[in-house]
């Protein structure tokens, strides 16, 4: 079975693994023990002790906490119950003017702000930009991902999560 050290997974996740090595990993059979090594790498990154259960973004995780399972920014900020859309507890900046769109697109054709706006979803604590939506005005905010967390741990990983009820 293919397997890699935690250090290699760490470098891969951080984008610092040299390309020839990365390329070999991409071409090889996948390592079945990746997930828990990945979680260990991410756990080392965060300042809190509660277990990271599932990454749902680049610096966004579902983890255990005293208030139950929550979506959490890497800085520790809680976006609340992981089953709810974390974006509803984020800070938002909407680019819906030519001037504000030009800040991101200085040289190119830009959207007509009557047809499309750019929505930036930040962590209210550390100002990390977690997600960008390009949507028509009035379009509901999308709930990107609703994982079947319990099913995943129970049926796919064979390690059921502890019941929180």
């Amino acid at each position, binding site marked *: 079975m293919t397997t890699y050290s935690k250090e290699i997974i760490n470098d891969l996740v951080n984008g610092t693994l040299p390309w020839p090595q990365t390329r070999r990993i991409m071409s090889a*059979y996948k390592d079945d023990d990746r997930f828990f090594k*990945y979680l260990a790498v991410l756990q080392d990154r965060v300042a809190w002790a509660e277990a990271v259960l599932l990454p749902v973004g680049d610096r966004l995780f579902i983890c255990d906490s005293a208030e139950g399972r929550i979506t959490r920014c890497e800085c520790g900020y809680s976006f609340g119950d992981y089953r709810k859309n974390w974006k*509803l507890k984020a800070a938002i900046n909407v680019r819906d003017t030519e001037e504000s769109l030009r800040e991101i697109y200085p040289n190119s054709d830009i959207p007509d702000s009557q047809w499309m706006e750019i929505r930036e979803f930040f962590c209210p604590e550390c100002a990390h930009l977690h997600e960008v939506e390009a949507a028509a005005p009035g379009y509901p905010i999308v709930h990107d991902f609703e994982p079947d967390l319990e099913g995943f741990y129970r049926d796919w990983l064979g390690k059921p999560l502890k019941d929180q009820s």
Partner: protein
Amino acid sequence: MLDKTANPLQRRLLESERLMEETGCYDGITELRLRGQDPLKFETLHTKLRAYCVSAREMARRISASPGVREVGEMVVAIYTPEGDAIALSNGIMVHVHTMSRFIKWMIRNGYEQNPCIRDGDIFANNDAFIGTVQVPDVMDVVPIFHEGTLVGWAGAVCHELEAGGITPGGDVCLAQERFTEGLFVCAEKIGENDEIRRDYVIRCERNLRMPIYWVLDEKAKVAACIDMRENVKQLIEEIGLEYWQRLSKEFIEEGRRAQLARTRQLTVPGIYRGHTFYGHVTEGKPGFQPLADPNWLYNIPIEMEITSEGKIRLDFDGTQPWGYHSMNCTPAGMDGGMFVTLTQHMNFEGLVNDGAWLATEINIPHGTWTNPDNEMAATATSWALLLPAYGVFQRLLSRGFIARGFVEEAFVGQVNSPMIEMGGTSQYGTGFGMAHFECAAAGSGALAIKDGLDTAYVGWNPESDMGNIEIWEQNMPMVYIGRSIVPNSGGAGKYRGGCAFISTWLINKTDHLRLVTSEHSSRVFDNGGLCGGYPAPTCEKHHAVRNSDIHERAERREPLAHTPGTDPLVSDFERIYKGEQVWEEGPYITRPHKAGDIFSHAYNGGGGFGDVLERDPIKTAWDVENGFLTREAAEKVFGIILKEDAEGYPQADIDATVARRAEIRRERMRKAIPVSEWMVREQLRVKASDFAPEVAKMYRSAMKLSPRFSKDFREFWGLASDFTIAGEN
């Protein structure tokens, strides 16, 4: 009326489908017996079949006269079961492996075994998307494979033709508003017998196409590839025996199905994934567009993907827009093809690649939408305009699963539209001509979760992306290149930026009549997205041309020339440098003919970005600026990276200044941002008042009319009454 029930092949197809339904396994293959008996032989035989396909395609490319096939490889071949399921395929435009499967099944279901009969040496062709392809220029040929009188399979090949004989030259005919203007249709026809293409079919092609040499020689190339594969398969059956082949080919597909389910369970996480994209089609008042197609359109494409606990992928397009009198509609075959080509790129990089992967998926394409028109008169010539953005969303949804599972090296922000330019009129040789320029097969890709996207090296429909050599294109059109350059800042911004696109600038040469038409570029909205904080890539919306330019006079005087429109969005370098009539055109470029001395530029799209821009590596950014992928202005304003110059004048990252600037940007973010709850209260008022541009309001009304779920979700999100509608009439 034909007695279809008496058709043995049709019975075999129905039986195969019944067995799949009853057992959940392809053709009722509940046990991979041959694989179990001798796994090495099993794998070796599949590798052989794949080698037959790859070798046949390479041989055919050398027969073709079309630079689309010869240069950029717009071709794919595959081997099928008698019922039309793909067993093995080549590289190339893999989207058509499954569309060809639909074509074969369509012939079987429609009694072709009785009339026009399916005999050894027959050649069948099709480019009707409602039978099984994506668009008119995708012409497919299949030949049956017989062993001692028994039909034992099919060999098939598809080429994208550079000229299809539509109302405008080329094949992606954006002006088509119904199928009757899309070009020459070949509707599941027998075009040859005894391994020879019929003369009357060739004459039909010669008299209905602007540039028949491409289509006709491609037919010969495809038939040669099919015969090559057929003879190899027959030889193989001689070696392994008919009974073994019949079981083996079915086991290959069942293994492909199982492998896809296993791969999904290995690489992703079960659950519901959602995303969306948009497409703006601005044609109001353009020459040639008839009243039905005249209004501008805004398309929303929401996609929900479910990964079940079994590992099945279900894609749902509920909530998208109706089909329309434009050329961007897609058929179920095209939608299946999009799913197939995406899966082959992102999940089936090991093991057997065949129709088994497709069997491990489900797709909901609501009747009456652009994904599944309830009118077979609908035009599909530029299906890709909506298909590529849609499957770019699919790639982002899959990628979120890869990131959740830890396989960050497979996460990919997705494909983009790569606008097509097509032309016709009088060639540089003084003859009539027509051609699609296929350098579009080399857009910028979306970023990965661990690195920047590929620059000018990816399109979704053909992973073997290639822009082709300038010299070859120049042989085929009355234009010469005066520039082919990277477009700075054309990749979406992010920790990892999207791949950059390129722009070509041509001087029209040795002709007094050149019609130029472009398609598949979204106007007024971005048709791609970023991921995890990355921004969408800018979408090319406008074209710039100079009529009656003074380029020859400037060249005579040895004065500098502009080789691109430059990076000023308001005043181009063409306007600064060249005298002449300056043309800016939004949306599809369709105007009066050009002539020698005119200048025209056409840009392709870059891919979306990944991650927060403030985490981008300053050193990599300095390299990007030095090499023209980013401008210094963007490095500072978008990424917060301050550059200084080293001793030799090259850009160098100023780390301390960058840290300070980024801290300032974070403070600015917090000053400008408001809680989402606050924003929603304000936006709700706008929604209640239906305070939208007419095209946006029309989009909402159409989506709500077609989709009870979209209506419910929309009303619930904004806290509206259950009978709320957007004001106005469609």
